[in-house]
């Protein structure tokens, strides 16, 4: 048995404002085909499959059951699902491989935000007795966090605008991005957040393949080895949290081994420009680290897949030889309540 598990392949859709012409399965299938094609594996060759999605986003119970049809689960497969971002599906698959019960895993996730009002939908994930009845939407909650940062003197509005501009500028080289280039900051949505500070609303899907040890080396020229991965959750109520900090991100990073050696790349799941500020501080990232070369969540935010895309983008940079040691981060819940951090490394090149 081996400790070594790597991301060996990654695929994602083009992220779009709407995809009325596609069901979730239809949106997902090309991504599944593509990621399998990268490795030459077929569904039947995969040791474990795990997905992440949300019934509330899909607007129906057991929405993930249909996605399984797209995988082609016949003969029957060893499979599981988390009602979370796909980054946590990847975590479950990683653990499964660590037990030695599988040596490859297919992980996928998808989300269509376009059929509903995602700002309203996300209010349903708040405390159902005290908070959800007030319908505070995701932008309003993030604005509280942004204002707390400004009040603490950590950032000002022009700096937030610069974060947004840098992400979208980087997204110019990302053919899958929904927003790229010179995107106007626009009007306030909820002060102090302007349209440009917020991730776009869109539909998309992503998939990765994990493999252990020599299997990974066979499937990928330069595997992105998962050197550590951890996730932590914080209290739900915003009133008991310091919104200018992310202790769960810092703890997860510590456990994942981030601080043992510098990283050269970080893919951060920050759906708001202000959240990148919080995450950079929690992770001690200075200007030497390339943050969100893909454009991050500000360039494309397929809810439930955005975190998995961060892991995939970080791995893809290692595959391409553009990074040797990368950090990938995913978040869930209001104002960065839950955070996952992984460290990915490429082996030294001869």
């Amino acid at each position, binding site marked *: *048995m081996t*400790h070594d598990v790597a991301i060996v392949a990654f695929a994602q859709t083009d992220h779009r404002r709407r995809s009325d012409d596609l*069901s979730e399965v239809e949106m997902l299938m090309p991504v599944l085909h593509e990621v399998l094609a990268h490795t030459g594996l077929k569904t039947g060759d995969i040791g474990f*499959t795990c997905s992440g999605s*949300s*019934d*509330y986003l899909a607007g*129906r*119970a*057991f929405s*993930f*059951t*249909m996605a*399984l*049809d797209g995988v*082609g*689960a*016949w*003969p*029957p*497969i*060893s*499979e*599981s*699902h*988390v*009602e*979370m971002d796909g980054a*946590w599906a990847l*975590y*479950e698959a990683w*653990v*499964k491989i*660590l*037990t*030695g*019960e599988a040596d490859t895993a297919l992980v996928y996730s998808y989300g269509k935000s376009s059929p509903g009002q995602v700002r309203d*939908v*996300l209010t*349903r*994930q*708040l405390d*159902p007795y005290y908070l*959800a009845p007030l319908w505070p939407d995701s932008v309003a909650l993030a604005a509280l966090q942004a204002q707390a940062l400004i009040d603490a003197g950590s950032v000002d509005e022009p700096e937030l605008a610069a974060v947004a501009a840098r992400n979208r500028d980087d997204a110019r080289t990302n053919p899958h991005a929904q927003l790229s280039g010179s995107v106007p900051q626009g009007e306030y949505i909820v002060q102090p957040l302007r349209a440009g500070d917020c991730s776009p609303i869109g539909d998309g899907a992503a998939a990765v393949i994990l493999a252990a040890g020599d299997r990974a080396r066979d499937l990928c020229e330069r595997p992105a080895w998962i*050197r*550590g991965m*951890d*996730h*932590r*959750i*914080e*209290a*739900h*109520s915003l009133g008991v949290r310091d919104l200018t900090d992310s*202790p769960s991100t810092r*703890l997860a990073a510590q456990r994942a*081994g981030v601080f043992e050696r510098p990283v050269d790349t970080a893919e951060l799941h920050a759906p708001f420009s202000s959240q990148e500020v919080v995450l950079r501080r929690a992770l001690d990232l200075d200007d030497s680290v390339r943050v969100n070369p893909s454009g991050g969540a500000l360039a494309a935010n397929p809810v439930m897949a955005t975190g998995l895309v961060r892991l995939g983008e970080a791995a893809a940079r290692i595959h391409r030889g553009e990074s040797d040691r990368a950090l990938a981060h995913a978040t*869930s819940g209001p104002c960065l*309540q*839950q955070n996952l951090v992984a460290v990915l490394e490429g082996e030294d090149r001869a």
Partner: protein
Amino acid sequence: MPDTARGKEPVAVVGVGQTKHVAARRDVSIAGLVREAARRALDDAELTWADIDAVVIGKAPDFFEGVMMPELYLADALGAVGKPMLRVHTAGSVGGSTALVASNLVASRVHGTVLTLAFEKQSESNAMWGLSLPVPFQQPLLAGAGGFFAPHVRAYMRRTGAPDTVGSLVAYKDRRNALKNPYAHLHEHDITLEKVQASPMLWDPIRYSETCPSSDGACAMILTDRAGASRAPNAPAWVHGGAMRSEPTMFAGKDFVSPQAGKDCAADVYRQAGVTDPRREIDAVEMYVPFSWYEPMWLENLGFAAEGEGWKLTESGVTELDGDLPVNPSGGVLSTNPIGASGMIRFAEAALQVRGRAGEHQVEGARRALGHAYGGGSQFFSMWLVGAEPPRT
């Protein structure tokens, strides 16, 4: 990093907690409900919240309570703040899958001691219509789960020639077993076979008394490694095998009466546990039977009976509490169905049996027990086999 070079870490169940399952727990919030079960599991293990390294939580669809990803709001109630928290959702099999994900965290040595919990507060909604959302271009679940499963029961009867009395025998048995289980939802003290048979036909051939109730409830377990087990105050149950299998919802080759995924899942568990003759080597079964006819169907699917013979085991009394292969000594899903928790209750009840802590519904001398769950259109399966002895490694 976890040390997997030494093979898998053995996993022990050292704590089990359930709520008293009822139609509506109006006295507690969702958080209060889950905390009650978790607290009881911790008490059983004589551990505190601080001893828990991670939390793995499961439930069936979020629409049942109207809370999207409720684990976020439940982090505080389950002592998860500052810890990892994973949320599993695999339809009706979720309670079992959740326990298996937690078990893997220990087996891989990522964590030493894990709290796993599953719940449903069905009184917050209406399960039948929650399962009947119309979806374009595909067959809806036809007025709840019963509407979906009734034709497959009918197919089983036609295929095996089972007499139409078998379903009522199962319901009569499970409801009597439930009387011995203080946590069971339905306690029908005046139950008789005649009453079951005289109950209204809901989805032919499924009668009212052959269906599960809608329950509020939660179930929790504490899973730990070898070191944790050695400190446990009560006898642990050891995980000898666990597996999940899935197949597509609908396709021409699917056998709805005895799905291949169920057969494969059981075979994998038996292989891991070194079981070659489940009928003789397993002492008790907690099987996911939401409609009574699924007992004989799953007896065949799980390899306890040859194809077409499952109903004969049931009819001959083998699956009674004092029979040779007791099935659902707890009263089963037929007596208690908080959907998201039902699978974990099966897993937990199997653990209680081999720990000798099942109380009045204890199967005497149970050394190995199977916990079984399924979900979706009979497409998701999760199972584990637990034993009184540690697994041979």
